[in-house]
């Protein structure tokens, strides 16, 4: 279908963007790879789209002191091709290759994926597993939110009205593993996990299992299996199937962490 009618503005600065976001029915447009399908299917009907892709400062990738800061407007392709990400964050480099298809990765952004908080998406789980800090800007300034406090509920985050996710800082991990099961290449995951290990401390975030990604910090494989919640079923897979598959991924991941 065709999208409903809306107005469009493309701010040149964050200040201008914050002003536009105060207008009634305003919504942020970044890569648009989730928002535009939702508009086409008339699941969303904003009055104004604030296209933030002109804010070039938000599309940088910088590595410093073992932390990689990725700007919110970096596309998945930029992240996939980044030597800094490949070197310091192999987890993210592996995860991004699972996001949809090349033509979608060329437009979809890291910030868009984190801010949308789709429970089946790869990057929110990676942010949890890496213990990332999300950088949120608003009229009152910038605040830093640990990933563990960012994903609140289904498609619900800590972002307040008028705030913009400007980037995320990912500390590197000694070891990491990313695994995902999907019916076809590029499909949403049936279930997946992002795992990291730093000095023996393991963090494993499952996605596709609940309304938000689920983080566990197990000390043993047995403990990890017990901590795994009973997943929500979907159209094709029962909770028991998903739980079984999550257990399979957990065993595969454990030996690599």
């Amino acid at each position, binding site marked *: 279908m065709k*999208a*409903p009618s809306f107005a469009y503005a493309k701010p040149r600065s964050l200040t201008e963007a914050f002003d536009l976001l105060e207008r009634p029915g305003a919504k942020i*447009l970044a890569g648009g*790879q989730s928002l535009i399908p939702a508009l*086409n299917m008339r699941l969303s009907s904003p009055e104004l789209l604030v296209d933030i892709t002109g804010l070039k400062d938000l599309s940088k990738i910088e590595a410093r002191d073992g932390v990689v800061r990725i700007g919110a407007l970096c596309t998945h392709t930029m992240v996939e091709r980044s030597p800094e990400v490949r070197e310091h964050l192999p987890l993210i480099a592996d995860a991004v290759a699972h996001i949809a*298809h090349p033509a979608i990765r060329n437009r979809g952004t890291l910030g868009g994926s984190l801010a949308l908080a789709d429970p089946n998406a790869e990057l929110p789980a990676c942010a949890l597993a890496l213990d990332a800090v999300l950088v949120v800007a608003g009229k009152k300034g910038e605040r830093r939110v640990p990933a563990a406090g960012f994903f609140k509920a289904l498609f619900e985050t800590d972002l307040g009205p008028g705030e913009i996710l400007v980037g995320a800082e990912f500390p590197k991990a000694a070891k990491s593993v990313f695994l995902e099961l999907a019916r076809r290449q*590029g499909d949403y995951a049936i279930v997946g996990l992002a795992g990291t290990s730093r000095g023996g401390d393991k963090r494993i975030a499952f996605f596709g299992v609940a309304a938000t990604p689920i983080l566990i910090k197990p000390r043993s494989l047995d403990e990890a299996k017990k901590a795994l919640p009973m997943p929500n079923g979907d159209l094709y897979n029962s909770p028991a199937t998903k739980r079984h598959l999550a257990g399979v991924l957990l065993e595969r991941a454990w030996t690599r962490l």
Partner: protein
Amino acid sequence: MDQTLVVTLMVNGTQVTRSVQPRQHLVDFLRDELGLTGSHIGCEHGVCGACTLRVNGEIVRGCLMLAVQANGCRVDTIEGLSDSKELAKLQKAFHEKNALQCGFCTPGMLMAAQDLVRLNRKPTREEIRSHISGNYCRCTGYQAIVDAIEEVVNG
């Protein structure tokens, strides 16, 4: 009265300026305003790949981008890449390998395939399948399409 915005973009090497509504998709703009109907519209929510275009050198979904977002961009369509002969080898291989039946997916499939050709690697069949995974064909079952692409990327 709905808002209209003036956009200027370079389509297949020619500069065009038009007034558009924000809600208009880039692929609708190309088809309805410019008569470039080679880019097809299948699912209109980013699943089928029939509307695959090239914007600033990278393939995108024409139904997941608004025409206003293409302001100032370089847009290349199947018509442009056919006329410039950039797709000639792929088109010949698709023809010879019988890599199309109804042809609806073919423009998008060629755009996605050419993206792989331009990377100038020697991809495996698995990598070819991965690169065209976002382009649906409901006739051929992909085998012949992968054969055709394989011949060009390894030729």
